[in-house]
């Protein structure tokens, strides 16, 4: 089987607008969560989020192209440029290169702006670029244009599992021989009035802080940004002398086929077991789990139960980095895969922030407070989504 490795990573998120800044913040235990600053945030009940602050797209992208880019595309392009530069990828891989990117809400602020114009402001026309800005494949397609990738290019939209499913499909494209290089990950820009207003109704957002697996938690906190990873067939990477960050060893996805919002530990456990089997690893080979860990009662208890079912009483240390970068929804799996690279390459397990007290119903070895040092050979990264979707990646030292 063709082995797949990661040769570049890039990100824009609430912690930093690049990988070095994000690694530093994750290591030091800083949170990107703060007061929301967008238009009409004062009309919301929930007024915190992990926004990309002081974002100036013109500092990163050609001014002439900006009218085409919703923020979700801007984040993807900037993260993608960092990942491609790190990988030293030559331009123009043509049909041997592709892009599969996750996003849950696509260009939601473009929808919001155009609806506001016609419904609230009584205007009779909207920008002619509304459709190419808001389409879910805009971030993936603009990455293909920017880097000359003419093979498989599409978006994956499966709520909070989007990025993990995108990365799993990218892995499969390379394994199957359909491509040698794939840019993959996710992008999200849901922190706008309509985006948060929609989430508020479910009563699952925290008004104060995200506290994964901790007593005192009040729910999730949304985060914006993008994470892009360069997946590459191993011999292709070795032949051009690329630095290999990790191997993408395994992937599996399952569907609960039960409830549209409530998680099922059976489905989560099946996805973890499937990903281990795909990687040819046993539970004892895994040194760290980057949990889905949203900080909701439903997820944290279900996920803990699933981890114990798969790993028994000696489960590896667990971190949720969502209280740092926020719940990136369709991008979150990409942020967390990048946190897994930190664990694999530097032996740093990032702390779960916001922790107050152990929840007896979450029997996991939670890394909290400060980062923990540990040499790990392999990690898993969980993503579970509304719709009952579970997607798990296994990364290991290459």
């Amino acid at each position, binding site marked *: 089987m063709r082995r797949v490795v990661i040769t570049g990573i890039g990100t824009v998120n609430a912690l930093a607008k690049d990988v070095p800044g994000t690694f530093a913040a994750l290591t030091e235990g800083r949170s990107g969560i703060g007061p929301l600053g967008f238009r009409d945030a004062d009309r919301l009940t929930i007024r915190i989020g992990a926004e990309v602050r002081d974002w100036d797209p013109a500092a990163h992208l050609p001014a002439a192209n900006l009218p085409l880019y919703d923020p979700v595309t801007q984040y993807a392009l900037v993260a993608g440029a960092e990942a491609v530069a790190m990988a030293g990828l030559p331009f123009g891989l043509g049909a041997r290169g592709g892009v599969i990117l996750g996003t849950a809400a696509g260009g939601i602020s473009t929808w919001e702006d155009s609806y506001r114009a016609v419904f609230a402001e009584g205007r009779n026309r909207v920008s002619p670029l509304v459709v190419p800005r808001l389409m879910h494949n805009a971030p993936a397609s603009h990455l293909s244009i920017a880097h000359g990738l003419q093979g498989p290019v599409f978006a994956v939209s499966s709520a909070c599992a989007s990025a993990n499913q995108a990365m799993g499909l990218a892995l499969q494209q390379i394994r199957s021989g359909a491509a040698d290089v794939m840019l993959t990950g996710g992008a999200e820009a849901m922190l706008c009035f309509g985006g948060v207003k929609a989430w508020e*109704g*479910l*009563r*699952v957002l925290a*008004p104060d802080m995200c506290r994964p697996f901790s007593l005192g938690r009040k*729910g999730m906190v949304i985060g914006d940004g993008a994470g892009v990873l360069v997946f590459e067939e191993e011999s292709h990477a070795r032949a051009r002398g690329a630095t290999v960050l990790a191997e993408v060893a395994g992937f599996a996805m399952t569907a609960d086929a039960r409830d549209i919002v*409530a998680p099922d530990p059976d489905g989560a456990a099946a996805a973890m077991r499937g990903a281990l089997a795909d990687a040819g690893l046993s539970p004892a080979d895994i040194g760290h789990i980057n949990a889905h860990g949203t900080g909701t*009662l439903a997820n944290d208890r279900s996920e803990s139960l699933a981890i114990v079912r798969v790993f028994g009483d000696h489960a590896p240390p667990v971190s949720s980095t969502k209280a740092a970068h926020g719940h990136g929804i369709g991008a979150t799996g990409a942020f967390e895969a990048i946190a897994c690279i930190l664990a694999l390459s530097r032996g740093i397990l990032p702390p779960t922030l916001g922790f107050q007290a152990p929840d007896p119903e979450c029997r996991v070895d939670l890394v909290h407070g400060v980062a923990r040092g540990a040499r790990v050979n392999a990690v898993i990264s969980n993503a579970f989504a509304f719709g009952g979707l579970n997607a798990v990646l296994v990364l290991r030292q290459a």
Partner: protein
Amino acid sequence: MTAATRAEIEAAVITILAAQLLLPVSDVAPDARLDDLGLDSLGKVEAIFALEERFAISIPFNANEPDLPEFDFATVPGIVDGVAGLIAAR
């Protein structure tokens, strides 16, 4: 607008819960417990939304803190008390 009477609030609570449960209103007793009625988590947030719209109030309910309710959503009388309190504070 004149304040809703307790009987009017109770009738509205029962109507809204019955609509979520797909039951006739006669099947939702004035002292019923929501767990006994079988209302799931999405039904609960939809009922809360309907009560907020009906009475122009904001109900402080967080699905992550069912044991520490700022608003007792466990029984019909608890909901009626909570709505009456929020109307009075409006």
